C-alpha cells in the first residue's frame, strides 16, 4: 500500500488548489479522479469572472494550468480511476482503486464536485446520444428543423432552450411546476418564441427509442393522466447533484445534508477526524470557481498545519 501525507479525491478546482498548496508545502499529495482533471471548469467554454485574466480564458485551459501547477510542485495523479473500496473511519485511511491498488493517508480531502442530475427514468441512459442529450451546444445542430422536448424549467434549461431555438422547428418544455424557475428576462424570451409550447405541471416517466425519434411517457401531475408523445429528441436540464453517492456505499460516516452535500465547519473539516471536504460537494451558499479554490486552500492549509 502506497502512503501519502494527503489524498485528495476529485481533480476539480478545489482539489487542484489544495494539491498546489499541500505539495508546495512538501506534503506528499495524491489526487484521484474517476474521470479527468478540471471538473466542471474544464467543460466550461469561457470563464470571464476569474480574477487575474483581463480577457476570458477557456475553462479547459484554466483547468489544465491548475493541473500543471499542481504537478510542478510534485503532486501525483491517478485519473480515470474508480474508487472500489475505502475506509475513512480509522486514523490511517485507505482507498482502493479499480480493485487493484490501495493508497493510504492520515488525511483525505473530498472534492468531488457536483454533476448534472439525471432523471434516472427507464430508457434514459440507454438512449444518451441517440435521442437524449444534456448539452445544447454539443448536440443542438443534430436537431435542425426537428421537433424536440426540453425537460426542466430552471436557468440552465431555459438558457439552453434559447440556443436550441436557433436550430429546431418546435420546442416543447416539460416542467413539473406551473411557472418557470429561470430568470424572468430569459424565460420571457423563450416563452414568447412562437416555436415554444409548455406542458406545465407535467413530468416525464420514461423514454422509448423509435429509431429516428423518441417517445416520451408523460404524466400530468394535476390529473395523473398519462400520455405518450413522440419527438425527434429530448434535452434534459434538471439541476445538479453532489458527487457524494460513493460515500453511501457503506454505513454513513460523513455527515451530509438532505441533498447529499457534505457538511463541514469553516476549516473544511467533516465530522470524521482527518476527513475534509471542499468545493461544490460541500454544503454552502455559492458555488463558483473562486469559492471552490478558496475551500481547497483552506483545507490544505489546515492539513499542512496539522502535519507539520
Amino acid at each position, binding site marked *: 500500500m502506497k502512503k501519502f501525507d494527503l489524498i485528495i479525491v476529485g481533480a476539480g478546482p478545489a482539489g487542484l488548489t489544495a494539491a498546489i498548496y499541500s505539495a508546495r508545502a512538501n506534503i506528499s499529495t495524491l489526487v484521484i479522479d474517476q474521470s*479527468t482533471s478540471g471538473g466542471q471548469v474544464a467543460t466550461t467554454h469561457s470563464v470571464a469572472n476569474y480574477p487575474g485574466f483581463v480577457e476570458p480564458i477557456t475553462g479547459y485551459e484554466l483547468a489544465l494550468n491548475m493541473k500543471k501547477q499542481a504537478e510542478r510542485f510534485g503532486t501525483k495523479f491517478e*485519473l480515470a480511476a474508480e474508487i472500489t473500496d475505502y475506509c475513512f473511519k480509522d486514523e490511517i485511511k485507505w482507498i482502493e482503486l479499480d480493485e487493484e491498488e490501495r493508497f493510504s493517508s492520515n488525511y483525505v480531502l473530498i472534492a468531488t464536485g457536483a454533476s448534472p442530475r439525471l432523471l434516472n427514468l427507464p430508457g434514459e441512459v440507454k438512449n444518451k446520444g441517440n*435521442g437524449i442529450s444534456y448539452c445544447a451546444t454539443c448536440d443542438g445542430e443534430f*436537431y435542425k428543423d426537428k421537433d424536440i422536448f426540453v425537460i426542466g424549467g430552471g436557468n440552465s434549461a431555459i438558457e439552453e432552450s434559447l440556443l436550441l431555438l436557433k436550430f429546431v422547428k418546435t420546442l416543447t418544455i416539460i416542467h413539473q411546476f406551473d411557472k418557470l424557475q429561470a430568470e424572468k428576462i430569459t424565460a420571457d424570451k423563450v416563452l414568447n418564441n412562437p416555436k415554444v409550447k409548455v406542458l406545465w405541471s407535467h413530468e416525464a416517466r420514461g423514454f422509448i427509442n423509435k429509431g429516428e425519434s423518441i417517445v416520451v411517457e408523460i404524466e400530468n401531475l394535476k390529473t395523473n393522466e398519462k400520455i405518450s408523445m413522440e419527438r425527434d429528441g429530448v434535452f434534459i436540464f434538471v439541476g445538479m447533484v453532489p458527487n457524494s453517492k460513493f460515500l453511501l456505499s457503506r454505513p454513513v460516516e460523513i455527515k451530509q445534508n438532505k441533498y447529499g452535500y457534505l457538511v463541514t465547519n469553516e476549516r473544511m473539516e467533516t465530522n470524521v477526524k482527518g476527513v475534509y471536504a471542499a468545493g461544490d460537494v460541500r454544503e454552502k451558499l455559492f458555488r463558483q470557481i473562486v469559492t471552490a479554490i478558496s475551500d481547497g486552500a483552506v483545507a490544505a492549509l489546515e492539513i499542512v498545519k496539522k502535519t507539520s
Partner: protein
Amino acid sequence: MHLNTNLKHIKSKEEHKELIAKNEKAVVCCGRMGPMCVPVYGIMEALREKHPDIAFTDMLFDIRDAEVIRDLPECRQFRGLPFTIYYRNGKVLKATSSIQSAKDMKAIIQEVFA
C-alpha cells in the same frame, strides 16, 4: 476551432487510414471542445498511459475529412457528440455516442481489445 488536447490529432482521411492500418488497436474520439467531449479526451489521455498498445487519438468533428467517422454505418443514428470509435485490425468493433465514463470506456476496452 481546433482540438486543444494532448492526444494525437487525426487531420485527414489519409491519416485516419494510416492510423487504423498501422495500429492493431486504435480509438478515435471525434468531437469538439464541448462539455460532453472534453471529459472523454481526458479519460483517453489517462488510459493511454495504462494501455500503450492502443493508439488513442482525436479528430475534429467539423473538418470535411471527419466524414470517415460521421458516415460510418455504426454512427448513423448518433445524435450526441463525441462519436468514439474502437478499431481492431482496421475494423470498427464498437462505436459510442455522447459522453462516456472512465468505467464505461474501460469496460469497452476490456470487451473489444482483450
